[in-house]
């Protein structure tokens, strides 16, 4: 059973590291639309897949977060990827499986998964 003492241990371990994850300009941000339409279309497990997969891969420079309505209900779940000095990439009709592919191909290897982007789905 996980206890608060583990958390204390994690803190000690982390404070010895130099690379704490933080929301800096250098980082990659993955933002999942989480208004009613997004949630109903399955945004929560998509966000969870991004969160757990990037955490397991220890991608310290990546943050995953949720936001309100992105404004295109019929294309939900929608995920936006922001990388420094690059144009925003918008993925639509996402699933947890697609999320794993985006992490492996786009976030880790830098190749946008074009077939899931809004451009390919309109």
């Amino acid at each position, binding site marked *: *059973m*996980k206890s*608060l003492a*583990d*958390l*204390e241990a*994690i*803190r000690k*371990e*982390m*404070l010895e590291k130099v690379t*704490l*994850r*933080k929301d800096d300009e250098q980082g990659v941000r993955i933002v999942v639309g*989480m*208004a*009613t*339409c997004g*949630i*109903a279309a399955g945004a*929560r*497990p998509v*966000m*969870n897949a991004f*969160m*757990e997969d*990037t*955490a*397991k*891969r*220890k*991608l*310290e420079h990546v*943050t*995953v*977060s*949720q936001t*309100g309505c992105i404004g295109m209900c019929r294309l939900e779940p929608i995920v936006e990827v922001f990388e420094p000095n690059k144009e925003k990439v918008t993925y639509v009709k996402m699933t947890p499986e697609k999320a794993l592919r985006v992490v492996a191909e786009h976030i880790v290897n830098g190749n946008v998964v074009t077939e899931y982007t809004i451009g390919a789905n309109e």
Partner: protein
Amino acid sequence: MKELSLHILDIMQNSITAGATLVTLELIEDTAADILKFSVTDNGKGMTPEMAKAVIDPFTTGRTTRKVGLGIPLLKLAAENTGGGIELSSEVGVGTVISAVFGYSHIDRQPLGNMAETMLGIFTSHEDIDFVYKHRHNDKEYSVDTRELKKILGGVPFTQPEVTLWLSDFLKENEQELYA
């Protein structure tokens, strides 16, 4: 919504959008009383009485100028379909309390679903907001207060991979324990 935990996520999202700095979720499953109920209390910007009335029942307002949301009406429908209902009380500048009651054994009640996933996403996405979460199932109960977690972490964020994974397991285990 397929799960009540998705309604809960949606309702908490309203509190976050309203600029709350503290959001409390109390969730109670009482099989003897045959009810499942939850309340979300926030210190966000609140609503005027007219606004509160309009959001509960958007279809009966004469308003056509404003796009009315779906979240609260959907929750209301889900609760009423099980013989329950919702209550909303709000004050401008003070905050909002919204509560919902469901018939526990009613055939139309959605399953509670994945509360661990709902809370993990909320905690890690809004580190500047504090959350208190209490979940009781009959005589078993657990609670999480992000202020306590942050105190222990001393500045290490929830988004740090090791912390995210710990939180995920912590929530999953505690949820499971309630039904053991």
